[in-house]
């Protein structure tokens, strides 16, 4: 038996994760992560280097089958607006978080601070509307470029070179939850007023970290909706 086979037949969760990560690194056929913990472990391995293979990350995130029992502790909904709940800090290489969207909740049009952004549906559906960057001369409204509705388990990708987007839960009956990965992590981004193209820098905050509610003083909305 080769060492890879020995590890596979070992049957211990950690060894299985090693195999998965190794397979990914060697670009062999990817076996899908069987749990959120496995997904996180694989992501740690993938992001340990300096290069990010977007297709690979998207594929791995998409292949994880959402199991609410595994992420329920991070899914803290708020009645007033969507929430961001930190799951993992990725050894400083990425932030992984669960976003919880009540009925009708939506985000501003925003950029991603030169980082990669992966967004995977855990529950429900989210509408993503893409916008071009407003150019410095245009004072008019920003026209949507395209839009789509993301289905459960689907994983979308965006970066500043692709454009800007607004994400919203358009359902009046169902809540939605999504798993986001940002690499490198960032705390500031820009929000855009659709009517005027005017932009604003905002600081992003976490509703909870690692399953624990973190209180934060907010008096003014950071969203431009």
């Amino acid at each position: 038996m080769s060492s890879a086979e020995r590890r596979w037949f070992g049957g211990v969760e950690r060894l299985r994760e090693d195999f998965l990560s190794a397979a990914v690194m060697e670009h062999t056929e990817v076996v899908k992560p069987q749990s959120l913990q496995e997904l996180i472990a694989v992501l740690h391995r993938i992001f340990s280097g300096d290069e990010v293979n977007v297709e690979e990350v998207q594929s791995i995130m998409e292949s994880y089958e959402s199991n609410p029992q595994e992420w329920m502790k991070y899914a803290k909904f708020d009645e007033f607006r969507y929430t961001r709940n930190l799951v993992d800090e990725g050894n400083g290489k990425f932030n992984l978080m669960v976003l919880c969207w009540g009925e009708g909740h939506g985000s501003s049009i925003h950029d991603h601070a030169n980082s990669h952004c992966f967004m995977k549906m855990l529950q429900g559906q989210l509408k993503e509307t893409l916008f071009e960057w407003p150019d410095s001369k245009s004072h008019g409204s920003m026209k949507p470029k395209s839009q789509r509705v993301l289905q459960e388990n689907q994983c979308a990708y965006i970066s500043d070179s692709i454009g800007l987007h607004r994400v919203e839960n358009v359902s009046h009956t169902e809540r939605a939850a999504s798993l986001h990965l940002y690499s490198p992590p960032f705390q500031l981004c820009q929000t855009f007023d659709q009517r005027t193209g005017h932009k604003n820098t905002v600081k992003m905050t976490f509703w909870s970290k690692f399953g624990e509610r973190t209180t934060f003083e907010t008096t003014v909305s950071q969203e431009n909706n």
Partner: protein
Amino acid sequence: MDVFQSLEQGDSVLDLSRLDLDSVDMDGVSEERRRETTRLYLASNRLAVLPDALCLFANLQVLDVSSNGLELICEDVTRLTKLKTLIAKNNRLDAQSLPKDFGCLQLEVLNLSGNRFEELPPQCLKLRRLRSLSVGGNRLRAIPAEIENLTSLELLYLGGNLISFIPPELANLPHLSYLGLCDNRIQSVPPQLTRLHSLRSLSLHNNLLTYLPREILSLVHLQELSLRGNPLVVRFVRDMTYDPPSLLELAGRSIKSRNLPYSPQDVPSHLVNYLDMASKCPNPKCAGVYFDSCVRHIKFVDFCGKYRLPLMHYLCSPECSSPCSSAPQSDVDSEDESSVPADRLQRVLLGPLTEAPE
């Protein structure tokens, strides 16, 4: 509100959701179990009617019957005296579906989203303990004025209906903190909503609003305001026709502004009525009045994370140009406004004086 979260001490859950059941035979559930059960989940089945033995769950607090084919909520439900939360989303319910005595329940949370309601059933408006009401994704054409009876209401979600008008009585809900009116046909927001002192989140996206009343600046606790997908005025409209006020109006203004006394002995009674209905100019620096003719003035204000919201002010005349701001929010004057000659600001003839200006 998620029925699956925050189970309390002593909560006992009977989960029969997602089992593709056409019917539920509760005989298999022991009397003790029925007595103990506080939460009963029956969502995502194919129930056409609620199970007969439902009222035997005497201590039931939470009932979820969403995503079935229900056309009727049986009268038995009204015997669940401890029921606090009823979730009946995604069924086929309409105003005839609720039992007559539904209003007697002590409900705190009611979710009827995704049904076929064309109006809010009167029984719902009797639920004095109701804190959260969701009737999103239905066919509601109006919000009844009796909504003010729900004095405990904190959350009201009515997104995705056919509502074109917000009744000012909505402002009589002292604890309302979330108001969801997105995806409707609303053309204006009544200034009375300024009385909703507890309002923290107002969702108005995808409606037919062109401006907001300046009174919205008074909502000091408002943190979230969604307005996308409304035809909001971006620039002050310059080319409006100028309709001079009538001689009657000019005479009326002179009388009121000079405080000239008048009585039915001096003038015909219809003129007395007319003079009595003078409106004071909202500009606090102006002592003027107007009758039918006032100037509609849009001022752009940054508010609640939003840039240049068009807020409507009413002034007695184009010369009354001092800004009317009622809250210390940042004002961003458009360069357009300061350069528009006063005589070209829009004039609006009001209808009968008792109606709100459009």
